[in-house]
């Protein structure tokens, strides 16, 4: 573990940017049609619950990251295996975010540029950042957060002023009952983006005042849930359900629709800026956590030595993870959400918490 401390505000900022990251880009919960915004709010509730689980684990082991307390809870051998899978999981998620982002840029802005080059550029930036450590990352995050808020606020003003919102598109609410909504929550939305806060089990030990961890995390997730729900509602009301469900990047389409005062149009830069900022922080957090976890697992003294190798792995994995975008998209929806996220975000942490509970109860009794 690096000798560094971050404060509660920095943690808040990191969680918000991390959660917004790629979630701004893709259509969220569109399986539930016009109720998508409701799905996100319920998913946020689930996310808060998951965060409480992670927080309880942190409460038992406030000084060590999750790859270390797994070994304390499960014993060294089994713990190490689980920790190793977590590191692989983080690397895999970083690669998926990178791929998704690269595909977005290639489809919409740089059709002639190879995906590899686009991804490589971003990973170079992330390598540079991660090398500087968590403190620099979180300070950068503070800046980017201000910038992101400015973007979101001014974009929403523009959308409202542009007069393109048609709230009829959001009706009827719960047309097919609550069942499809709950199904979407459990199949997709709980895990992406909310369940991904599981990476912060590796970052919470850096917090300088541990009593603030609970409130900060819950507030950050709550804020993200509201923002994402709002954005989804705006997307649907501007574009309509059928367009959103067919669009790869609904927020981009919404922003492209904006035209204010005859000259404020083609505001694609807004979208690119917001997504680059979010994705940058998201990949950097995944990357950093994977690096620290690996360093911890394999007893590498200077974790910065792992920066370049892990960066190369993420870069190559981002290309190799799927042969084209449809495959990537299907993989994401049919496989990753349920079979990858569910165990790593829900099952294992709950399992760990139960064992940790009994272990610590025994200890306090003894």
């Amino acid at each position, binding site marked *: 573990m690096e000798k560094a401390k971050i404060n509660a505000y920095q943690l808040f900022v990191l969680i918000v940017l991390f959660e917004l990251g790629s979630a701004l880009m893709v259509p969220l919960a569109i399986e539930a049609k016009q109720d998508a915004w409701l799905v996100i709010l319920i998913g946020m509730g689930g996310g808060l619950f998951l965060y409480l689980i992670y927080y309880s684990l942190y409460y038992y082991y406030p000084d060590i990251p999750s790859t270390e307390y797994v070994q304390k809870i499960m014993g060294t051998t089994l713990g190490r295996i689980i920790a190793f899978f977590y590191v692989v999981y983080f690397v895999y998620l970083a690669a998926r975010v990178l791929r998704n982002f690269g595909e977005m840029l290639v489809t919409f802005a740089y059709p002639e540029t190879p995906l590899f080059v686009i991804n490589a550029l971003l990973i170079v930036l992330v390598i540079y950042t991660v090398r500087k450590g968590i403190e620099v990352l979180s300070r950068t995050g503070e*800046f980017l957060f201000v910038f992101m808020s400015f973007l979101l606020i001014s974009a929403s003003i523009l959308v409202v002023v542009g007069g393109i919102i048609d709230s009829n598109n959001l009706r009827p609410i719960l047309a097919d009952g609550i069942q499809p909504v709950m199904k979407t929550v459990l199949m997709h939305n709980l895990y992406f983006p909310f369940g991904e806060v599981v990476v912060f089990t590796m970052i919470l030990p850096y917090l300088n005042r541990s009593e603030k961890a609970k409130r900060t995390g819950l507030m950050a997730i709550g804020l993200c849930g509201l923002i994402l729900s709002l954005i989804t509602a705006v997307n649907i009301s501007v574009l309509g359900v059928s367009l959103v469900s067919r669009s790869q990047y609904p927020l981009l389409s919404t922003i492209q629709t904006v035209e204010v005062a005859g*000259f404020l149009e083609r505001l*694609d830069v807004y979208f690119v800026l917001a997504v680059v900022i979010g994705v940058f922080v998201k990949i950097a957090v995944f990357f950093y956590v994977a690096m620290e976890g690996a360093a911890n697992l394999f007893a590498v003294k200077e974790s910065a030595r792992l920066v370049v190798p892990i960066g190369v792995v993420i870069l190559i994995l981002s290309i190799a993870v799927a042969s084209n975008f449809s495959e990537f998209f299907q993989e994401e929806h049919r496989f990753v959400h349920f079979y990858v996220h569910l165990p790593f975000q829900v099952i294992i942490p709950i399992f760990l918490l139960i064992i940790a509970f009994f272990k610590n109860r025994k200890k306090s009794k003894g």
Partner: protein
Amino acid sequence: MFSFFNGKRQTKKNMKKEQNSSDQPNSNTKYPGYIDNTLSTNIDIIRKRTGNSSDIVFRSLKIGRNPEIKTAVVYVKGMVDSQSVNDFLIEPMMNNPALQEKIIPQEVLTIITEEVVALGGVKPVNDWDELFGSLMSGNTIIFIDGVSEALIASTQGGERRSIQESTTYVSVRGPKEAFTESIETNIAMVRRIINNPDLWIESMKLGKMTKTDVSVMYINEIADKEIVKEVHKRLKRIDLDGILESGYIEQLIEDQTLTTFPTLYHTDRPDAVAGNLLEGRIAIFVNGTPFVLLGPAVFIQFFQSVEDYYERYDIATAVRFLRIFIFFISLIGPAVYIAITTFHQEMIPTQLAIIIAAQRESVPFPAFVEALIMEITFEILREAGVRMPKAVGSTISIVGALVIGQAAIQAGIVSPAMVIVVSITAIASFATPSYAVAISARLIRFLFMISAATFGFYGLILALIMLLVHLCSLRSFGVPYMSPIAPFIPGEAGDTFVRKPVWAYKERPRLIATENLIREGKDQRPQPPANRQIDNQNQNIKKGDQNET
């Protein structure tokens, strides 16, 4: 016996030399460590050591009766205040009645010190290194035959530049005087602003050959003790031939060398130094330069000028925002133009796009090459303008106007739009208050241009984020460079992009001054009278004057 001690001292010296060679650079010279008791030997030693330099004056005098005692006054021409040497040293030594009697050599030193010399500082010395040090810094040495000690009389003076208006940090409102090359004058100018015994100064000599005076100034009780200690530690490390300007020291004590951004602030304005000292910063004065170093520095400081605090706060705030905007223009102006014209033409309104396309039709180069040509031309002009004698300056401006202007466009090398972009960027880079930040922006601009030319806005955004990460990773004496914005410190954000009214500065920056944070008393906000009652009490006002109430 004598030689025994002498030898011992020398071995000590050698040991010292091994530990720290900067302390005793002259220990290999041939003269003995102590002053001899015969005058001629001493004078010979000085002549030999200085290679008979013509600016060293030896003036022999004879004092006392029966026997007369030979004395010599030695000083360096031009370094001393010749009037005080003549009037307060040589003249009294020749005429003072105390020296006209029979005296024994051993008492002469005391008599001269106590009764004859009318100067502020007189002290005996018996060590050659110290003697040469003070002789070379403008003091006068008095040798007496038969005494193995000499006297140092402080007569420093000579011609110096007088105090003038600052040419690098000009202000409309505020004190006009700027530092000079003399360290004593500079320190005194700050003392004149902060009349407080808590203003502490510690001096040292740095540079093996130049022995430059370097002083560290801070306000005790406000400055962070750890940072003061750290400054000392870093200054002590310095082992150089010469310190010619504070820039030498800046480069030797900064936290990180691999950056284009300055991590120490420098200024030649006494009021800026005083203001920074009050915030808990530490000033480093170097003899021979008007530029004083201030640390720890934060990034936003380079966008502030002292005048901001003298102006009204709302105006100062607006100006500060303008400066940030200017900095961004000077940083990414050409890069944005390149990115838009090369990759994102859809962002320009259609009519403008058509005009730009028509202009660029005759230009044979891509936008990047075009921008590069103009930027490099501009940099050449600028460098020429700085280094040229003033007499040829006007030639440059005429030729420059032709090059960046109509002729370049008519020749079909660049498009008119590019001339506008480059000119605005050029003006913007002059409008940044700190030259140190302006030149680093000047350099980084080319990196931005390259990234914009290869990957458009995506490359530009990545480069900006990388710059941000880099800035966030810098520290100045352990203080994060981007504070108080990142890490965000709520109370201090009022002195960054915005400037709070003076009555709202309750505390000092807490990362820089760790103790004694309270800066001003309560209720500093001016309260206008609740009604005009105050005026009514003034009997001189006639009733007719108050009809507005």
